[in-house]
């Protein structure tokens, strides 16, 4: 098993980050070409705790390294990830857990992401992923698969940060414009 972890501080409030998070893989993100679709499967607010639970299906298109392709064969172009997220507005935390649906008999990838406020204007992003190759037999191949996926996580983490920074920036601009527009409307009515 390999573990990948990563921490990022965003200079935005938790409210802004937790809202922008829903559009992380939208058109404002120019660094997430590998995510081609995000579908919501279920969504519910728990009456007792106020926690919002959402299930999503993430469709990725990212070519696997050639040696893995030749080992596993078949079409590896599209892969699916199941994500469950929990927003706790009282404690101001967003926790997202995800696992791979594709090739799950060969490798298990479990990721957990937490967004929580550091201050009124800062939000911390904590990411950890556990990568376990399940195929029996050769340890060298298992290590190879785990290392290769770990490297992919590292590469995607850099892109993820850059892409999300842009989404946050755009969200703030659009929100300010919207506020301005409403203000103008109000003035026009007076």
């Amino acid at each position, binding site marked *: 098993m390999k573990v990948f972890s990563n921490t990022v501080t965003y200079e935005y409030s938790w409210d802004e980050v937790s809202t922008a998070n829903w*559009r992380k893989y939208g058109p404002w993100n120019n660094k997430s070409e590998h995510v081609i679709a995000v579908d919501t499967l279920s969504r519910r607010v728990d009456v007792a705790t106020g926690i919002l639970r959402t299930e999503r299906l993430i469709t990725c298109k990212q070519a696997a390294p050639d040696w893995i392709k030749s080992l596993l064969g078949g079409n590896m172009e599209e892969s*699916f990830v199941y994500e469950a997220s*929990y927003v706790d507005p009282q404690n101001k935390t967003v926790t997202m857990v995800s696992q791979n649906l594709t090739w799950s008999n060969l490798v298990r990838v479990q990721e957990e992401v937490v967004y929580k406020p550091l201050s009124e204007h800062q939000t911390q992003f904590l990411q950890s992923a556990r990568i376990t190759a399940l195929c029996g037999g050769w340890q060298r191949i298992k290590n190879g698969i785990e290392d290769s996926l770990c490297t992919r996580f590292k590469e995607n983490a850099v892109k993820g940060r850059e892409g999300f920074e842009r989404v946050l920036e755009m969200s703030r601009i659009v929100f300010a414009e919207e506020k301005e527009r409403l203000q103008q409307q109000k003035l026009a009515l007076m």
Partner: protein
Amino acid sequence: MSASLAPECNEVKERYDTCFLKWYSEKYLRGAEKDNKECAGLFNEYQKCLSVALKDRGIDKLLDEAREDNKENDVRLTAPRK
């Protein structure tokens, strides 16, 4: 907003996502509402479209297994905190 894996669901998904985001930022985060009633109609329409696509692609079965796997997380992450 991001696309749906089923292109035929894109239009209703876009409308639902927009509705949800507005509710989330304006009501849910402000503690005003726990129920996303205003988007329920759009959500049902979107799910009707999506469920066909998931079934056709055999993803529905993979999801059932993942949900089973995720039960521990559900318990841990929906428990009331002190």
